[in-house]
């Protein structure tokens, strides 16, 4: 099953089981979704529950908040991460805060999903990552999974949860293949150990997990070491327990992300490790991230602006050699 099919299946199942679930967004209905995540849903559940919206992201999220207040479980799709900026007031000032400001009188069972990141030459206004911003907002859960099985389970969880969830996808993951274990009972807030190892803990999430996995064989060969790869899955809350456990074993931390280096999401993880795992770390943590530039259109420049399996290998090996890994 493809990643996007797993998401589609998750939506289909929850919509089938609970008729308060609705989904809304640009072209999610008749068109089938610009990445086909909502394909076939309008035929099954009708235009009242699979709602094509105008190009008005502020309203897409703002309306979802109101639908949740009114007793529905909306799943809002934003076509591309960058456009979510138009909805930041609704996400941060409303979706994240109404529960707290009302001291729990208002409950918002809702999801906002969007794909983000560098796809292929979509240029600066279509390629950015916003998990850094959204994971820093109290009142939001932020899920972002790289694995097909997790994609299915995490989205189901997100829709059925009574809390507001930001569900971040990646354009290059939609066609990823994987097995879904439908009967699994999976905690979406638990990190996934993508690969066990004993010498370096490499933490990543979303599409970069796959790039890290591609880099690992070469890194292990070059450094003569074994890497543990952790896929965060939940960006807020973070499963610090799993990270701790791993770092206690390896004494070394590498954080890999696609976001810009300055202020990118991984800073929080490295900063946490510096505060909490200082005496455990045998080497300075390493943060691999995108360059501090808007994403350029040209393919070579685009690839040079973010970590790739090659750059990950190169940078971890250099760091490893310098720090006696």
């Amino acid at each position, binding site marked *: 099953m493809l990643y996007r099919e797993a998401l589609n299946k998750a939506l289909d199942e929850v919509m089938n089981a609970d008729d308060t679930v*609705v989904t809304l967004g640009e072209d999610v209905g008749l068109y089938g979704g610009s990445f086909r995540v909502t394909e076939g849903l309008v035929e099954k559940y009708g235009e*009242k*529950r699979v*709602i094509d*919206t*105008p190009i*008005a992201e*502020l*309203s897409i*999220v*703002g*309306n*979802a*908040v*109101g*639908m*949740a*207040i*009114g*007793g*529905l479980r*909306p799943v809002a799709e934003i076509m591309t991460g960058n456009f979510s900026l138009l909805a930041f*007031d*609704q996400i941060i*000032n*409303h979706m994240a805060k*109404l*529960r*707290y*400001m*009302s*001291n*729990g*009188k*208002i*409950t918002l*069972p809702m999801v906002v999903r969007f794909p983000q990141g560098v796809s292929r030459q979509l240029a600066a206004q279509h390629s950015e990552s916003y998990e850094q911003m959204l994971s820093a907002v*109290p*009142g939001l*859960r932020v899920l972002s999974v790289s694995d097909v099985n997790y994609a299915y389970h995490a989205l189901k969880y997100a829709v059925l*949860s*009574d*809390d507001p969830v930001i569900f971040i996808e990646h354009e290059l993951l939609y066609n990823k293949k994987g097995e879904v274990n439908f009967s699994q009972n999976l905690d979406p*807030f*638990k990190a996934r150990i993508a690969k066990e190892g004993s010498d370096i803990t490499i933490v990543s999430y979303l599409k970069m997990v796959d790039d890290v996995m591609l880099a690992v064989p070469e890194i292990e060969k070059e450094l003569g070491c074994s890497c543990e790869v952790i896929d965060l899955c*939940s960006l807020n*809350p*973070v*499963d*610090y*327990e799993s990270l*701790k456990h791993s770092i206690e074993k390896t004494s070394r931390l590498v954080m890999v992300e696609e976001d810009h280096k300055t202020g990118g999401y991984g800073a929080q993880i490295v900063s946490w490790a510096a505060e909490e795992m200082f005496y455990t770390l045998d080497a300075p943590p390493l943060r691999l991230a995108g360059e501090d530039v808007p994403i350029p259109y040209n393919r070579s420049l685009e690839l040079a602006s973010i970590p790739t399996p090659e750059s990950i290998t190169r940078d971890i090996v250099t760091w490893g050699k310098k720090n006696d890994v």
Partner: protein
Amino acid sequence: MNKLEAEDIYYLMVLGRAFEYAAKENYMKGNISGFLHLDIGQEGFSVAAIKAFEKGDIFSTYREHIMAMARDIETKAIMAELFGKQTGVSGGKGGSMHLFEPSRFFYGGDAIVGGHIPNAVGCAYARALQGNEDGVMVIFGDGATNGGAFFESLNIAATHKLPLLFLCENNEYAIGTNIKRAAPFREQAKKAEPYMLTYTVDGMDAKAVYETVRKAQIQIQEGHGPVFVEAFTCRYEGHSVSDSNAYRSPQEMNHCKVKDPLEKFKKELQEKWLCSEREIKSIEAKAQKAVDEAVEYAENSPEPELDALFENVFYEERKNVVS
């Protein structure tokens, strides 16, 4: 409207004004802090609109004390909220701008100008889907009609023919900026004309507001889709207690205050409903008493526990911290 209802409206107007003055006094004393937006001068509008919208959901702004009272939220729980007390409607966490009572279908209490309008649209969508016919009313100021959230909402509500009453309280000012300097015309209903039925009404005339909102709600209930009502009002005080109101001349203020809604509605009570001076005095005394009790209640209520800081960030608290 029958006599009882009229008396109730008058009671709420007097209650509202007394409440606002008491709030102002307690702000000066330091019992209330933050932004405090008083509704004095606009009581008729606020009370009548809420009462006329008999059932259904209400979304309002930060200038919502009186509307909350008109929606039968306890006066003392509102005052306690202003005091930041545990017994406040929002447990002391929201304050004056954030009054919520879903059991009364009253949802704030939003301090982002225009930010609640898309929420109301979404709620109207939910109601339509659920087959609930009472509709939703969203109240906002003239200042909100210049923001994108408002416009997107007109378009969406009209496209889906949602059961939504847009109610604009046009007091001609957004803080210190007159509407004529922020829009090309004074009447904001014009903006809604391409999309839906619109009405304008004198917001200082509670009876007129009541009738117009009633009519609009009935049209919504009959399935005509969204309706826009604009009421012209005058706020007597500054934008909030910390605003000096220096941008309006004494002449402008006098002119604006001349049609006091309480005075006008009192006449209505006397002339149409033949209320005696005594009946009216008794209503006024009852209102003052309720406000005094509310202040006392707020004063004597406990502060929230410190633990409250971490409560209600999420519904599923257990998931809050994994590590």
